[in-house]
């Protein structure tokens, strides 16, 4: 076995040193009737070339070479090549959690820089070292708000990513956190009147997403006003991190629960991604997850350590702020490098290209179909309502090697034939024109079908 670094002679010498005859003696603590005396029924050992070939085949069966208009919490942005060149350095890839700070300063300083940039971009005081993803981060933020306020219920926007809501439901079930769901208006934004009625003295937090699931930017200040006047916290979930380049961050939020996948993390069929929580300084001791902090060594030299560990499970056990143990360090490093590459000016220019592509697409789609939720600013996603079922249109688009928008019926039955489309800097004008062309064709054929009976009658 090519990963195992021992010759038969090495093994024999080691057995002799231990003072046993056979390696089987080492397994004698396992009761004989439970020892496996056969080979596992798994695929036979493969050569590296066979492994590569097997996965390349799977890649070909997995939408290889398709252009995509999908977003909805997983965004296709360009990944600068330096990201993979750097994260594949063994010293990052094959290091453990930096508990032994003297031997892990590289990882720790990188986390410290990550925390700084996330805080800067989100407009919060500070950020943690990362969470599993945006969905679990949002759920953890709600539990954090419950701890801070001592209140128990949560008010949730219905235009929060539906799968984030599902995860929150799972987490909240046994925490006794009742939830109220707030509908959205014709602009796709949360209904402020209903929100105002829903928030009361038992509300620990209001959780919204901005840009929300439909791509529309919320009036965060107005929402914060409603939450804060009744002593509730405002949590803003951000699924499309690239928006922070040009959309004003939710500075009046108390907690930002972000999914940073857009920043240099491959789509990877849904994971691993990079959640992160950012908050105000006064709430830091209630924040879950790892934190890197700056300190000095015995000679006064600057260094970094994991800190405030008394919040965490390995110290507090059942009294910890969360059961979370790992973070997404290597994925956070991708995010970190991406943010460093684009930086202060590049992130804004990148976001501007996303806006421009989206504005063009909205205009073109709008000529042939109905673009919903107009009347509020949006970032890079928009909802198109067609006469025909979008699954059928998407099926034809696949023939052009294009993946169309996400049909919304599954999550929002009342939206019928609407689909959520996304444009990024990688979306080309010709992709947009092809997709619009097929949608236009679909609309024409539906119209002519509707018209047919009349013609027959005549």
């Amino acid at each position: 076995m090519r990963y195992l670094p021992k010759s038969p002679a090495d093994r024999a010498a080691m057995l002799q040193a231990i003072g046993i005859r056979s390696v089987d003696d080492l397994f004698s603590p396992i009761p004989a009737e439970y020892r496996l005396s056969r080979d596992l029924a798994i695929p036979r050992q493969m050569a590296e070339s066979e492994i590569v070939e097997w996965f390349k085949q799977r890649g070909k069966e997995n939408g290889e070479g398709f252009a995509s208009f999908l977003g909805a919490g997983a965004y296709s942005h360009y990944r600068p090549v330096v990201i993979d060149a750097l994260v594949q350095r063994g010293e990052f890839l094959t290091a453990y959690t930096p508990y032994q700070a003297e031997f892990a300063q590289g990882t720790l300083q990188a986390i410290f820089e990550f925390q700084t940039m996330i805080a800067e971009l989100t407009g919060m005081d500070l950020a943690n070292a990362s969470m599993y993803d945006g969905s679990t981060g949002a759920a953890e933020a709600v539990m954090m708000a419950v701890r801070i306020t001592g209140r128990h219920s949560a008010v949730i926007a219905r235009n929060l990513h539906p799968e984030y809501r599902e995860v929150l439901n799972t987490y909240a079930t046994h925490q006794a956190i009742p939830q109220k769901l707030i509908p959205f208006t014709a602009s796709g934004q949360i209904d402020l009147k209903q929100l105002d009625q829903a928030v009361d003295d038992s509300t620990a937090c209001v959780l919204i997403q901005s840009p929300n699931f439909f791509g529309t930017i919320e009036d965060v200040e107005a929402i914060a006003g409603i939450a804060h006047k009744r002593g509730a916290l405002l949590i803003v979930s951000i699924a499309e991190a690239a928006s922070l380049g040009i959309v004003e961050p939710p500075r009046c939020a108390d907690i930002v629960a972000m999914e940073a996948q857009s920043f240099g993390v491959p789509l990877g069929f849904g994971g691993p991604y990079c959640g992160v929580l950012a908050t105000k300084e006064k709430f830091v001791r209630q924040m879950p997850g790892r934190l890197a902090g700056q300190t000095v060594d015995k000679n006064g030299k600057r260094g970094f350590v994991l800190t405030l560990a008394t919040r965490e499970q390995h110290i507090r056990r059942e009294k910890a702020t969360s059961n979370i143990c790992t973070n997404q360090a290597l994925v956070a490093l991708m995010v970190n490098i991406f943010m460093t590459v684009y930086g202060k000016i590049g992130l804004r220019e990148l976001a501007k290209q996303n806006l421009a592509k989206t504005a063009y697409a909205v205009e073109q789609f709008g000529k042939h179909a109905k673009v919903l939720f107009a009347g509020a600013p949006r970032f890079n996603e928009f909802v198109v309502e067609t006469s025909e079922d979008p699954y059928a249109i998407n099926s034809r688009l696949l023939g052009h090697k294009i993946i169309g928008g996400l049909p919304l019926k599954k999550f929002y039955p009342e939206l019928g034939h609407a689909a959520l489309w996304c444009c990024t800097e990688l979306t080309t004008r010709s992709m947009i024109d092809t997709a619009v062309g097929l949608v236009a064709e679909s609309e024409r054929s539906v119209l002519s079908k509707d018209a047919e009976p009349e013609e027959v009658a005549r």
Partner: protein
Amino acid sequence: MKHMTRKATRHISQNEGLIFEKSSPGKAAWKLPALDVPEVDTAKLLGKQEREDLGDMPEVSEIEIIRHFTRLSTWNYAIDLGMYPLGSCTMKYNPRVNEFVARVEGLANGHPYQAEKISQGALRIMKTLSDCLLEITGMDAITLQPAAGAQGELTGLLMVRAYHEAQGNARKKVLIPDSAHGTNPATAATVGYAVENLKSNERGMVDVAALAAQMNEDVAALMVTNPNTLGVFEQEIHKIAELMHAKGGLLYMDGANMNALVAKTRPGDFGVDVMHLNLHKTFSTPHGGGGPGSGPVAVKKILEPFLPTPVVITKPDGTLAFEYNRPQSVGRVRAFYGNFGMFIRALAYIFANGPEGLRQTTEDAVLNANYIRKGLEGVYDLPYSTPSMHEVVFSDKLQSKQGVKTMDLAKRLIDYGFHPYTTAFPLIVPGALMIEPTESEPKEELDLFIEAMKSIAEEVEDDPQYVLDAPHHARITRLDETAAARKPVLRWKREV
């Protein structure tokens, strides 16, 4: 006297400030393509929502970025540099082919919401990995969705709770041995269960008589780690399972570390009802400085209805699909399908090993741990003489007579070119030194480690202060952790 180490030599290490300290206006490492659609008026589109300024985000060039992160990387220790003997962490070799295949185009760029008919490759990977893990664990059904071990525990306990609720009584408590990882009690609390401690016996195992006395109809499950954190196999595991089952309880196994069991025995065969696996331990996906992990949960048939949605199913025509309609499901624990990139890596590892490779891997892991145990027995105190599996736990009892504790010994190990072992865990061993070499170490590396540990023990006798002041050769000396926690500095700020 101070000993020289054969493992490492000091060399020049580059200094490097924070990236913000290198930033200056006008430098850039990015270039966007020419826009093929009309420019937009952002103020008109966004109104008051437009962001004017990104604050103190850096502005640097590409070469500075390469140097910055490369320099930082050289300050880390890594498996690629040598043995990483962290007990319970399973720091084994992370094969490079895993990284290569995870970056295959259709897999790395696959969108989680693309149609199932163009997702058959990803689904096939999930199905194949599931089948392999079920065969390895001897369980009946599995979810790959949990993002890490702790979330796997959460998922497992949610299913335990749902199972009991379906029987008409959720029950109140979860029993957890005092040797368990901290995530176990933290998870039980998250699911709304009270935690009841279970004392270990003098051999470091679950005290079966005590369990029998504590087990009743209020207990939902026992969370047992096997081999436990002492590296000891619970020899009466089948009796433990019988005791639990007799009173309607379930047996949860923390299978984060399966490195002593794979291809040698199967939890499903010895009575486990539900368990999680850490792909980033046993199945070689990289730790990456603290994540991402992946924590699949395997269960017996009785728990299958409660698996998180969606699950992968085979349709009559042989194609694969996600099934969402599962009314008894505990729900979703993560958006999308889990850490898919880790599934690819774990499956590539299983392919590279095959049945005989996995068996040899387990045997070598246990052989290595016992070789270290033999080499250091007598030099360090061995609190439990029970046979060791994949890891061995010593204590600092002998060295603490000189005032030197496990953490001091660990810091001195850094000077010898080794990453420290796990310190002060499990909690049932005061001053624990928890050592897990994994199968990835050649005999020469193990010999160097044993030599280093012996040498440090001698130093403790000759000059304890020198060990207390360690590390001496790292980039920095010990950091002031108290100050870090008292006045936390968690981000850089521009000096004004």
